[in-house]
């Protein structure tokens, strides 16, 4: 894609992020006592005063803002109170884990959805189609944290073949990936099925048959390529969601990703971590969106911008 287009997107993303962070800054200071974000509600007055001074809350709002803005621009998100390290360092450690987890789960979901969705579409209206429909609806409706707990119950507690939580070798990834896999799989199967049915009814598929192509070629060479387009878009959206939204599953399994980091930060009132995590997630989402656009352009020649 052209450089100016990329710049425009980058500018808009930066603007959106700035808007979010700035509004967060002001919201924090204008709604109630910001110290509440750092201390439990029943902290003593002396502790609060000390925190206030430590956070620079006794300075004027303008001074606070300029200090804050300067810090953010130099990517200094403060020191995490709980980890006793610069927040951004902690975040950068956790980020790759989440990305890997999301990528694996999505890749599996996408592949499985293409296969199941195509089978269902070719069999449209028949028993296989209905079976796939029920399965995908169930998968799309399952609460991931519950699935995680049941998985732990079944595989870890009852059968002891998988660990309950923690981090280490590949075996620690099995359950988290399985949980994250369910909902995207369910959604994508429906989408692939729908667009495959549409593609299979399209005129150019009749042309392929009229040219003498057998069913296999018609389905996988002609119809599928067209049916992929909506699925790729949705997968891109899901990827963006996973960047910051896979948190609940991470919490269930104690998986050291950025989702767990963020939620722990919120529960423990570690604002530096929260701020840094949100920033990191926003950047990741932006990058993913650009990648999806480029991917879409390579699949659908009609979209390639002149």
């Amino acid at each position, binding site marked *: 894609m052209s450089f100016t287009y990329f710049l425009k997107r980058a500018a808009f993303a930066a603007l*959106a992020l700035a808007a979010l962070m700035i509004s967060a800054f002001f919201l924090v200071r204008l709604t109630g006592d910001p110290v509440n974000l750092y201390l439990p509600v029943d902290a003593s007055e002396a502790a609060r005063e000390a925190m206030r001074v430590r956070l620079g809350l006794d300075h004027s709002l303008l001074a606070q803002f300029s200090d804050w803005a300067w810090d953010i621009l130099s990517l200094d998100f403060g020191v995490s109170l709980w980890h006793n390290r610069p927040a951004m360092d902690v975040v950068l450690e956790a980020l790759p884990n989440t990305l890997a987890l999301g990528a694996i789960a999505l890749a599996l979901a996408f592949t499985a959805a293409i296969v199941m969705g195509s089978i269902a579409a070719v069999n449209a209206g028949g028993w296989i189609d209905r079976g796939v429909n029920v399965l995908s*609806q169930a998968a799309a409706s399952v609460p991931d944290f519950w699935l995680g707990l049941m998985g732990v*119950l079944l595989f870890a507690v009852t059968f002891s073949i998988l660990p309950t939580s923690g981090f280490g070798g590949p075996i620690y990834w099995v359950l988290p990936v399985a949980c994250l896999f369910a909902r995207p799989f369910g959604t994508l199967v429906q989408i692939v099925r729908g667009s495959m049915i549409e593609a299979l009814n399209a005129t150019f598929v009749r042309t392929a048959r009229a040219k003498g192509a057998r069913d296999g070629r018609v389905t996988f060479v002609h119809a599928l390529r067209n049916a992929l387009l909506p699925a790729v878009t949705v997968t891109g959206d899901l990827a963006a969601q996973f960047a910051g939204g896979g948190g609940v599953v991470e919490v269930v399994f104690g998986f050291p990703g950025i989702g767990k980091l963020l939620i722990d930060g919120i529960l423990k009132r570690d604002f530096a971590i929260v701020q840094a995590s949100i920033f990191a*997630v926003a950047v990741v989402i932006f990058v993913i969106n650009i990648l999806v656009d480029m991917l879409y352009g390579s699949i659908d020649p009609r979209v390639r911008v002149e």
Partner: protein
Amino acid sequence: MTDTSSEFLPTSERRSRRILWLLRALAGDPMAVAATIWLLIVVLAIFTDSLSLLGGNRISLKTRNLPPFDFGQSWTLWLGADALGRPLLVRLIQAASTTIGIAVVTVLTSLIGGTLLGVIAGYFGGVVGNVIMRTCDIILGFPTLLVALFGLYLFGPSVSNLVIVLAVTRMPAYIRVARAETLEVRERLFVDAARVFGGGPKWILRTHILPSVAPTMLTLASVNLAMVMLFESGLSYLGLGIQPPSVSWGLMVAQGQGYLSSAWWLGFFPGLAVMLTTMSFNLLANWFRIVTDPSQHWRLVSRRR
């Protein structure tokens, strides 16, 4: 969705014909029937609970951690009991009203707010429209859970905050759809209405734009019901949603987590309830989408298979 041959029948007959047609369409989709049955059961359960017919939440040490499927006990104990001996089934039903209530209120808020803002943005455009759309883009740029978590962090987890946060994060989807539909209708009607009837914007909005926007918005709302339920369960599970002593299914799963190996039913049944209800909403949303699209009616009403 109109049976054109009945255009000239009296209104009451038209209405009953339409209801019959809807019932037939419902019967054409067995999954939707199952979904409706489940939802009716849930609604009935909530209703009986509101009339206090269930015998309440008595703590009883005798039934402490009673496992489920023991049909010798009274029927309320068939799903087991928790650490304080309270029947799980009763707690599930009590939580049902909270869980579903929050989902419904949230969706209604996004629906009404989103439709209004979207129609305004579409019909009047200009600076107001632009501001609305840009704000939407910003909100849509971030994952819902993230924004919800941040919002609850800033403002504290209360029921009203929960509803507001969830409604706001989902509203941009409604706004976009409402605006797109409004633009389409506006292009079609603008010249005619202005020239022929001299009708003002309010009239056009009410009689033309809203009815054509309504089916799509309702479909969106039905899909959103499922999503909001899942979000609320997740947030309550994390401890940032419904707070004790109120109870919701998500919260019950969190409370059951500690008893995973000893009393698995405490975490299993609430989560199952969420899944079945979410699934029912999804299935009905699917059915609704087909029913409101005239070109798809044959799927449900055709006698040939």
